[in-house]
């Protein structure tokens, strides 16, 4: 089954990449964009038997750096 892991920078952690995207949007003439935060999406194809605990462990041990990032796990129906 498909699992999506959404990794985002914690609030308060500076995101220079997001800021550059925001400036670029402004340059293209889009108004009203107050802030941009860039994260990443990691898609896993896993066996049905992989538990929520195991997925959580994967996030904490590798997929996210808990010092600077939050993560959210989403199981996607096939």
């Amino acid at each position, binding site marked *: 089954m498909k699992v999506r892991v959404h990794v985002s920078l914690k609030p308060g*952690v*500076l995101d*220079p990449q997001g800021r550059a995207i925001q400036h670029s949007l402004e340059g293209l003439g889009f108004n009203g964009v107050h802030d941009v935060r860039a994260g990443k999406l990691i898609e896993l194809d896993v066996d049905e038997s992989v538990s929520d605990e195991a997925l959580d462990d994967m996030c904490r*041990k*590798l*997929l996210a*750096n808990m*010092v*600077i990032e939050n993560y959210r796990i989403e199981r996607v129906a096939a």
Partner: protein
Amino acid sequence: MSGFRSAVITFPGSNCDRDMADALEKVSGNQPFRVWHGDAELPERLDFIALPGGFSYGDYLRCGAIASRSPIMRAIVEAAGRGVPVLGVCNGFQVLTESGLLPGALLRNSGIRFVCREVPLAVANSQSLFTSGYEAGQVVTMPVAHHDGNYFADDATLDRIEGEGRVAFHYADDVNGSVRNIAGILNEAGNVLGMMPHPERAIEPEQGGSDGRVLFESAVKGLVDA
């Protein structure tokens, strides 16, 4: 001196490992062991371990993230726990924070650009194994070359490491947005140093300066005298 046993670890994408090995050999008179990331064990009775700069695993996922989970890192974490000195420079610093041996993380430079130039550094702790040859407050010059050198930790962690004298170097000027201008930090026991500037690129005048040599001399002298 006889038998200074050091090791330089090479990950796929390391590119400062030869400079690091060269610096250690010139200062100690002994050729370091060259250790591959996939090795499970370190050479015995090491006096010093160096994690070099570069772009291990192409900086995939996060800088240093994949390297910090490679087989050799289990042996390095264990050796660091026994008190073996470990120096991580640039990507090596990123590997040390990702492995949990040092607190905090290294983010994209606040100015977004890659920064490659010589920078002035203020020595914040001149008592450590790595910095005893410097004077406290002395300003030295070393090159930096990084895209992700923006040191970050939460305020409680910063207060603690500053209070414990664990900041080894500050940038004299803002280089990359690092909180409190932190350029290098020590672990609690003082035997692990991570820093973004490159001491191994400043060991003889032909390189533009030799302020980095003092760091290696301090470590070699400290270990021989001990």
